[in-house]
């Protein structure tokens, strides 16, 4: 819980303080600092919740025989999956709400509250939950699984424009960034305040579909 909320909030405060809220800051290519960081950090930590947090929890449940016990109850695999995804979606919206409240209160940030961004939040939460569930299903040890989650999360956070614009990185890293789902998720959220960019949306939607299916496939349950 602490990690899920305190860390992104703290980062938003720190970064907002460092870079201020002047639209003319060269650092941020013409956008309000808070308007750049707010959606970016929200996206990044929705990722972290799915790829680190959910991975650890799911992995522990698998190790401790809870999934086995549950599969011997009337609960179906679909119900279990839906419940897991739903909890991550709720967490994502809660995080977005906290960040937005802070952003509006302190930095006059705007946006994040339209249909497009909400659908995007929903898809992003699904996407990264799928990653978490896949990791938990494929890797036996919870420590190793969440370690892998961290190994995915932190580089992705750094390379996807969370802390600095992608354009400020060397070109080979920019190419890498174009392959990362977080890039599109974060950009989609940023742009939702201005105009809905269909590319971001479509990429996130496709990634989400694939990863949800993989997550479902790799979650151990009955064999039937």
């Amino acid at each position, binding site marked *: 819980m602490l990690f899920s909320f305190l860390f992104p909030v703290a980062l938003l405060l720190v970064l907002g303080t460092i870079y201020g809220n002047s639209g003319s800051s060269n650092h941020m290519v013409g956008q309000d600092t808070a308007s750049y960081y707010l959606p970016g950090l929200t996206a990044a930590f929705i990722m972290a919740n799915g790829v680190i947090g959910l991975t650890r929890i799911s992995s*522990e*449940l698998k*190790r*401790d*025989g*809870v999934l*086995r*016990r*549950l*599969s*011997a*109850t*009337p*609960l179906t695999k679909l119900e279990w999956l839906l419940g897991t995804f739903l909890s991550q979606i709720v967490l994502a919206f809660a995080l977005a709400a906290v960040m937005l409240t802070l952003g509006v209160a302190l930095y006059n940030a705007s946006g994040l509250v339209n249909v497009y961004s909400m659908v995007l939040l929903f898809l992003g939460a699904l996407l990264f939950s799928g990653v978490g569930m896949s990791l938990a299903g494929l890797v036996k040890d919870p420590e190793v699984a969440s370690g892998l989650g961290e190994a995915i999360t932190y580089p992705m956070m750094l390379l996807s424009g969370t802390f600095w614009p992608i354009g400020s990185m060397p070109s080979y890293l920019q190419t890498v960034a174009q392959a990362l789902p977080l890039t599109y998720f974060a950009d989609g959220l940023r742009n939702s305040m201005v105009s809905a960019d269909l590319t971001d949306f479509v990429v996130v939607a496709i990634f989400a579909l694939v990863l949800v299916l993989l997550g479902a496939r790799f979650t151990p*349950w*009955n*064999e*039937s």
Partner: protein
Amino acid sequence: MAEPVASVENLVKRYDGVAAVDGLSFEVQRGEIFAILGPNGAGKTTTIEILECITQPTAGSVSVLGNSVTASRGADEVKKRIGVLPQKFGGIGRLTIAENLKFFAAMYDKSVEVMGLLDSLEIRDKAKVRFADLSEGLKRRVGIAIALVNDPDLIFLDEPTSDLDPEPRRTTWKVIADLRAKGKTIVLATHYVDEAQRLADRIGILRGGKIIALDTPAELLGKFGGGKAVIFRGGGDAVFGTLRRFFDTVSMDGSDVVLPFDRLRDLEVAFAALVDRGLEVEVALRSPTMEDVFLRLTGLKTSDSGEAN
């Protein structure tokens, strides 16, 4: 004869062409503790998972509580009415005992009152302790409580006392025996020979996916135990030679001399022979144990803690 609670006929289960279970047949009677005893890898967990309807058989027919496990309706029915304790069950570590019980109880339409369950297993005072903070013995006890939330008539316990110290093992055995006293039917998978002997009404010895013997402990001891024997400790060649003149069956085990016997008369003859020769030797009596049965049937030794290897 009443309907068996579960019946298995020529059960086969293959993983990637390798048969984990290879033609198993047995029945479980109402109100008994039926132990599936075998070394690790013998196919115990696979068999239990098929009975629990979480794995499908490759071939054969399996019926639990009157339902075929291969019919999806059947499997659903079974799951409502059985209780399950998986191997090395660690619960939902972050939740308390009470929360764990309530969570699992919520999976069923009908469940027992959680506090009552805690009382009956004498863990009420720990209701607010996180599962992960419990001792191993208590984890198992709560695991059994979780297996009871839907008040099942048939309960599957997979290695319920593995890795436990002697004290919590005994307590867990008592809990299991109490369940039978309440009329529950229990299928117990174990690799502990002493556990099977102590708890089970009938034991099915499993090896390489096949049942190699199935009977009550008393019958198994009678048929395969090797019978009683007198051991003349340190008797050596002198004692051996003396007794050899009267008994074909006498053997040596190191410097000990082992004489199986059926009747007291045999003993009379043996002792008289030795006394006659003026041989003084320490005497011990050996009764057949399940370890002996197990060794004879599987050729596998059990470790000091009675585990089948």
